[in-house]
């Protein structure tokens, strides 16, 4: 407050100073605050621009060209032709469908399992550390390593799972391959989901559950009517993280089927075109499309967040 008055007394317009006394200090404070905010963000923003904006812009630029490294002299600017090619291609849409299927199924299953795991980890009193550590083991294993162990497990003759559950070779058929890919994904990332949800569980005050108990709620009612609503922001964060991750699924497919039997995800497809096929134009187009899809998913989630924070949907707050 005193700083404000000092600053003000240096301004020559004395008469207006008195009239405007009630409001200006506040807006000045706000302005200073905003400036400070921008300054604090600037370094991070700068680094972000340097490391992400350049590659993104460059791949957009590449996606607008015919550019196949096998025929370098045919390089030319062709506008949106690559996009037309990709979006009318059935391989793209098959891969898109596969990716969507994997995303929806794995995230849904992980949410349910993760919630169960989170509650177990939250509630255990004895050997808490041990329970938590062992639950997190799958997440700690490198995806490729884990994927290989799944592959060997499902390989007929050598794998214990293949011998137990099937007489054919499950990784050579589409449906069973997809199921195994999803299984591997779920096994690997459920602990991560559980970890995020556990942070949400910690947000639920003990008194709230006690109040619900005395109000006559059963365990299930406490979960659905008290815990879930309070946890909603944490659940949305967990879902966002996992959805974006799942949509870019690559390593498990790469190791388990290498995209055979139409099990490619969009990331696999982009990789195949870009790195294996050396078609920089088409590959970049796919990358840009993946980027756009991910951005749309993120946007939808962020929209949902807006109304998720407790009290934020009340007009008086704003």
């Amino acid at each position, binding site marked *: 407050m005193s700083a404000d008055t000092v600053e003000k007394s240096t301004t020559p317009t004395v008469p207006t100073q008195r009239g405007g006394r009630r409001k200006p200090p506040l807006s000045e404070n706000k302005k200073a605050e905003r400036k400070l905010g921008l300054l604090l963000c600037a370094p991070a923003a700068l680094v972000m621009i340097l490391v992400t904006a350049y590659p993104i812009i460059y791949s957009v630029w590449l996606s607008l060209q015919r550019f196949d490294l096998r025929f370098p002299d045919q390089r030319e600017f062709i506008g949106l032709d690559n996009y037309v090619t990709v979006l009318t291609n059935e391989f793209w849409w098959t891969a898109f469908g596969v990716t969507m299927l994997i995303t929806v199924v794995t995230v849904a299953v992980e949410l349910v399992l993760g919630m169960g795991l989170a509650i177990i980890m939250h509630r255990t*009193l004895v050997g808490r550390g041990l329970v938590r550590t062992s639950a997190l083991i799958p997440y700690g294993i490198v995806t490729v390593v884990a994927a290989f162990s799944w592959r060997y497990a499902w390989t007929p003759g050598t794998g214990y799972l293949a011998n137990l559950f099937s007489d054919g070779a499950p990784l050579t058929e589409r449906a069973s391959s997809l199921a195994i890919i999803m299984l591997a994904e779920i096994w690997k990332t459920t602990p991560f989901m559980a970890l995020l949800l556990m942070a949400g569980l910690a947000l639920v*005050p003990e*008194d*709230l559950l*006690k*109040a*619900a*108990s*005395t*109000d*006559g*709620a*059963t365990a299930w*009612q406490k979960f659905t*009517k*008290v815990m879930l*609503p*309070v946890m*909603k922001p944490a659940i949305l964060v967990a879902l966002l993280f996992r959805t974006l991750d799942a949509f870019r699924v690559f390593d498990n497919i790469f190791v388990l089927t290498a995209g055979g039997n139409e099990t490619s995800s969009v990331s696999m497809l982009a990789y195949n075109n870009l790195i294996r096929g050396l078609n920089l134009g088409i590959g970049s187009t796919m990358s840009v499309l993946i980027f756009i899809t991910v951005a749309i998913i993120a946007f939808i989630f962020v929209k949902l967040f807006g109304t998720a924070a*407790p*009290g934020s*949907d*009340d007009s*008086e*707050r704003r």
Partner: protein
Amino acid sequence: MADIVLDKVSKSFPDGTVAVQDVDLEIADGEFVILVGPSGCGKSTTLNMIAGLEDISSGELRIAGQRVNDKAPRDRDIAMVFQSYALYPNMTVRENMAFPLRLAKLDKETINRKVDEAAKVLELTSLLDRKPANLSGGQRQRVAMGRAIVRQPKAFLMDEPLSNLDAKLRVQMRTVVSRLQKQLGTTTVYVTHDQTEAMTLGDRVVIMRGGAVQQVGPPQELYDHPRNLFVAGFIGSPSMNFLHAAVQDGGLHTALGEVPLGDRVRRELESADAPRELILGIRPEHFEDAELVDDDTRRRGMEFEAPVDIVESMGSDKYVYFTVEGEKASAAELEELAADAGAADFAGAGGNLVTRLSAESTVAEGQTRRVWFNLEKIHLFDPGTGRNLTLHEGRAAGALAD
């Protein structure tokens, strides 16, 4: 509505902490009982056991004559109000209050009627569509009360419901709680560590210390006839003065002079294991400016002279602080009380004497003043056990009783 009986109820936690020890308590139907005591004495634990939120380690709990030890909270039909209010943040005020009714599967109309009624009683009608985040502390408090009263439970349990409010609001809400309880006539157990609340609200007060009940009784009885040192020091504000007293040839040697003893106390002190040192307790209002005491009254007490430290005039009377020489009274209870009150509030055991004199007194700071005190209102405590030696059949009789 129902009575609540605790029969030798104990609670020990898995880590070995004994939070509540053999608590015997009979709460009559419609009674308002206050649990009070310093932090960590097991008040909340006792309340949680009544609510069913905490298992009972041993003993029996009966609500309306029925053993409920193994019943889930939802089957006990009691409502609880928490210090943190514990309102559901995602629900509006109306939904919060309707929640227990909805769980009880009442029809919509009944629910709305009951919520509206409760809201009217608590002056919440205009806030029914707000979320808890947009309410003030006092309003949240009232919503929490509303949620408890809508379902007309057998009993209310309240755990420091007013502790998060500022002083003024707390006084206001105190009358709201008191009025509400009288209107509804619902059995209520109320936990607090604020002794003003304890004195003003309840029909009976239960004083706890270290998981054990110290004394149960109407507030005035606890004030006048404390069973032990702890109760004497805990109840009353400013607290009772405690002085060291040495037993000497049938009398007591204290910083206020030689205090004569009546036959009864003397007989107590004659036994072989009787303490040679006592703690003398006297409340501030039992002092008076010696100039203002008539002869008749004078005979019931004795006088001393001491330098005046501070005079605080309250209008109706004067709080006068004296410095007295001599040994400090010391006992485990006094240390505990001082720790709980935060030393500043508990001058009881220091070299400071707090007195409440008539407003007409001309006492001034810096003077040495002659002060009279009432020997019939003196309490004598055994420093070892804390027992009040002047208590006879539950009545405190002073030092002179025969």
